[in-house]
């Protein structure tokens, strides 16, 4: 016993090797000496001094059990295992020990809760609808979620990943709605992670996705609590991570990446219009410049005479073949975008001036590019930014390069070949085991009402069938299963 006690003290001493670890021993004018230790940067001194110290000073002659019952803090534990003591200390707990009670240690949460306040969403901004976005603290995020789902069916499962980062992760799902197979798969994959640092949900998402080779995101990241709440209600699961202001939603399909959550707050006609618009924008953005290259390099005949004369006159002075012209312009747009993303926001405004006016006009005047192509490239860049999800929009920007190369190789046929490869890739892709192109393939007619269009809410009596929910009716009255 005594030996073990020394061991405990040894370990505490070892921790004290770090100068921000504090061991405070009170022994002089007390018959019952005690020790309190904690990491200075992690604890909130106000709590420590206002709630714990007065109690300790008066009740030091009691046992730890009594003290435990008296402490006005919920997160506390009485333990004699070094492992949980260490864990607690590293999370901002204070450890209180009475010399008389040996290894018995009372750990109590006095952690400093620092972090941003809840702010309006910046990436998924909406004009209508709630203006709350997740922050870095997982407790605050779960609070935002629980407020929207005040039912006991919402369960969370907490885990820790990262050998060094020890990041806290919570998988949330609805018991009785979410298919356990999906939840178990994601939990299993998270448990399988063996890596030192997992710092953000985007890293986590890359580690648990089905296909690591794919450039398509297979889990949806969102900063909107309303979106997560609705997703849980539909039978999806959500993964939160401490330190990340984005939750991951899965299983998802391709169409969900073209959904801005505001679609659900707008009247359904407008929502459907905007969704179709986004879909056409994405298609346009992927193939517009490669169609230009195909038409100008190979298929003059396909373009009608009136349009052809415009094309030819704009290209008359250009010394480069269309593919070089198009590649240079596409790369310029990506350069502008990347420069804008890396620069501090105040300087970034100049990028607009430099990019839009100087490079655009000057390139045409210098006969480096045709104005038709410039319009096409600018429009397709604009179109690619309509994608509500950032990761999907980067994917779409990258996708246009293979299409350009295909167009250069075999014109329209080359574009089709690249398209076929893309299609097969998407057909093979899965999100936590659910097919990526659902509801188009496998065809699920009942899910089409909320895919590229959004029909009125009265047309959604059931949860999406591709989620294989345990309970498919969305109304309190049961609907007969077909």
């Amino acid at each position: 016993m005594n030996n073990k006690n020394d061991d405990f003290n040894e370990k505490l001493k070892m921790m004290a090797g770090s100068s921000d670890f504090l061991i405070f021993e009170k022994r002089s004018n007390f018959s019952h000496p005690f020790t309190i230790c904690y990491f200075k940067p992690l604890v909130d001194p106000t709590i420590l001094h206002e709630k714990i110290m007065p109690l300790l000073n008066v009740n030091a002659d009691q046992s730890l059990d009594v003290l435990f019952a008296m402490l006005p803090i919920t997160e506390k534990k009485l333990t004699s295992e070094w492992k949980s003591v260490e864990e607690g200390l590293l999370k901002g707990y204070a450890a209180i020990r009475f010399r008389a009670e040996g290894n018995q240690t009372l750990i109590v949460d006095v952690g400093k809760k620092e972090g941003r306040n809840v702010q309006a969403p910046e990436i998924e901004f909406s004009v209508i609808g709630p203006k709350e976005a997740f922050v870095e603290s997982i407790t605050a995020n779960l609070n935002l979620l629980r407020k929207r789902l005040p039912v006991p069916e919402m369960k969370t499962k907490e885990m820790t990943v990262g050998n060094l980062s020890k990041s806290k992760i919570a998988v949330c799902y609805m018991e009785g709605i979410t298919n356990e197979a999906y939840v178990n798969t994601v939990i299993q994959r998270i448990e399988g992670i063996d890596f030192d640092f997992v710092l953000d949900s985007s890293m986590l998402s890359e580690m648990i996705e089905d296909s690591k080779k794919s450039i398509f995101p297979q889990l949806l990241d969102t900063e909107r609590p309303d979106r997560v709440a609705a997703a849980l209600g539909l039978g999806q699961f959500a993964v939160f991570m401490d330190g990340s202001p984005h939750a991951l939603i899965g299983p998802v399909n391709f169409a969900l990446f073209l959904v801005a959550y505001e679609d659900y707050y707008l009247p359904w006609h407008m929502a459907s219009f905007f969704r179709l618009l986004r879909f056409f924008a994405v298609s346009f953005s992927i193939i517009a410049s490669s169609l230009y290259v195909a038409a100008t390099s190979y298929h003059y005949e396909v373009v009608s005479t009136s349009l052809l004369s415009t094309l030819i006159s704009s290209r008359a002075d250009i010394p480069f073949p269309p593919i070089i012209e198009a590649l240079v312009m596409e790369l310029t747009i990506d350069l502008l975008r990347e420069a804008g993303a890396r620069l501090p926001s105040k300087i970034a405004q100049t990028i607009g001036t430099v990019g839009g006016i100087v490079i655009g006009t000057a390139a045409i005047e210098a006969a480096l590019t045709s104005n038709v192509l410039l319009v096409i490239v600018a429009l397709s860049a604009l179109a690619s930014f309509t994608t509500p999800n950032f990761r999907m929009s980067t994917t779409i920007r990258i996708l246009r390069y293979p299409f350009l190369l295909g167009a250069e190789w075999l014109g329209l046929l080359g574009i089709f070949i690249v398209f076929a490869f893309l299609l097969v890739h998407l057909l093979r892709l899965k999100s936590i085991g659910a097919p990526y192109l659902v509801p188009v393939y496998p065809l699920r007619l009942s899910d089409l009402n909320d895919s590229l269009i959004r029909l009125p809410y009265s047309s959604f009596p059931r949860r999406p069938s591709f989620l294989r929910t345990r309970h498919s009716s969305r109304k309190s009255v049961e609907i007969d299963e077909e």
Partner: protein
Amino acid sequence: MAGKIGEKSLLSPFMAFFAAHCMQLGIGHLTFQSDVAKLVGQDSWIVVCLTGIMFHLVIWMMYRVLNKAQNDIISINQAFFGRWAGNVLNLFFLGYFLLFGGTTLRTFIYVVQVWLFPDVQTWILSLILLLLACYAVFGGLRTVIGVCLFSLIHYVLLPLHLELVPYLHFNNLLPAMDHSTSEMIRATQKMTFSFLGLEILMIYYPWFKQPQKSERWVHLANAATTLFYLIEIAASLTFFSKDQLVRVQWPTLALFQFFRLPYIERFEFIVVTFNLLRAVPILCLCLWSASRIAKTITRIRPSRTVPFFAALLAIFAILLPDYSAINQVHQWGNLMGNGLVYGYIPLMFVLSMIAKKVKPA
């Protein structure tokens, strides 16, 4: 033998529609009008209907055999003819599907070479298309049928035929029924080539949930094919005069040459490109079934046989230098297909009626 298909990989029966329909709508649709018109002229549309009806009959017989055995044709062959003779028949099927895929591949490339890029090498296009097909086949049957579904995009070009309506001469269809029975039969045999492909369902049968239910979808697929060919043949017969139609080598593409939209002309280029979407699913379906047969007979994993068969198809495509060679292969394919559809399947139907119970192989 093939009963070890996991519950999870089973497909819904309606997917049989896409597999059957895509397999039928091959490259044949580019040329069939003039081939048939050479024999029966204005009565070609009747031949299309007749062949369609014949195929409904064939599907019906096919499903009687399959429903009774509740298994694919590979096992049925083994059960009926014994292990050795059955496997020889299965090898015939394997060769047939490879020939089917190889012909489609080479014809597609030939059309590209004639209409779009005379300089493109056969081997490079074969390589790319077969890589694509292998990529899809490795994704499993579900992916392959997904490719079939998306290949139906080519139907967006169908409404363009409406633009032809003012220029059609329905007088060309008269006099109706002006040909002898033997001429009609020979034309039907010729037409059969464009309808072939349904036989693949004999391999896919056990992969559907409640496979009996896939029958009506296959009938529907055949009906859709018949309707599609009817539209094409009617447009060709009434747009071209008979003498002209017989001389046009690519009637479908020649029709599309006529269309124009405000900013797009020369639609045949786009049609040739869309043909890629007809060729790729056929390649996938053929490679998949060939590897399935190989797996059942020899137990070699598809991951080995699929690249091997793909290489065979590529070599096959490279070895066919010009249209006369391709046409020769078409004739073989047509002969094999005719034998299969009008000989083998009725034979199996009769045998399966006689046999009391098919014993499991």
